[in-house]
């Protein structure tokens, strides 16, 4: 089996690029959670549960994709 070492190196770099991008996205999703919390404090219309739940789902999705990318790539 003939593996091109240069090709292997490139995809390894691309993998870390992906993983870093997803890590940044996790930080973004944390900011969104904080933002939703501040928004709910500013305006209370008894709809904070669905909005907060969605923000947390978004965060967990981001964490899931990060782990998936880390393991699969």
């Amino acid at each position, binding site marked *: 089996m003939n593996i091109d070492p240069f090709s292997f190196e490139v995809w390894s770099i691309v993998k870390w690029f992906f993983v870093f991008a997803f890590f940044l*996205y996790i930080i*973004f999703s944390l900011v969104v959670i904080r*933002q939703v919390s501040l*928004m709910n404090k*500013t305006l209370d*219309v*008894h709809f904070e549960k669905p909005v907060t739940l969605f923000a947390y789902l978004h965060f967990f999705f981001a964490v899931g994709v990060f782990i998936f*990318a880390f393991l*699969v790539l």
Partner: protein
Amino acid sequence: MADIYVSKPFVRKEEKQEENVSLDEKEDLTKKKGPIPFRERKSLDFNPIASFAFLPKEVDFETKNRDEKIVLLLRRHPITNLRWIFLAILMSLAPLLLAKFPIIDFLPSNFRFVAILGWYMITLAFVFENFLSWFFNVNIVTDERIVDIDFVNLIYKEISDADIDKIQDVTVKVGGVAQTMFNYGDIYIQTASEKPRFEFLSIPKPEDVAKILQELRNEEKQEELEGRVN
């Protein structure tokens, strides 16, 4: 002793009929006789994602005083969300186009799959941010003041308010096919407060909002006059 005949008080036919009419019929009468003062109207069942809420009971905001009563909670008309909803649909369908336009085929299959997952994550963030922007950027009218809550981006918010008696001029603008069809428009409020101009953009029923603001201003003037007399 002679009986004294006491006649029934004279009541006009129109007035007598009006006593018996229901609230719905009374709404119809307003078309002929002008609007019912907002204090006589009943609050509707509160829907947290409504763009026009009249006398909402379950609403609170950061700078609200204890004895302050919210008269109106306004958001942009839902129809204004169509643009980003349409864009979000296009974004979620975009990966299907990759079958016809193989622009990421140079990537190994596992990288392709993760790239598509990342794309859907960005789409999700786009939808959520647009919804939050619509949901939390509100205009509030209370019996004391008008409040404009703006979340410009993730980390910046602006809350401005002006007392009702500082309102100098209210301008209603409704123009274009969509605004005329769906009855929404812009209200520009000139005030004598620190922020000279308030903009309630793309809100539903702008004429009703202007009428309510007028009633509140009249009430404030009345209170001011009574205060001076006493």
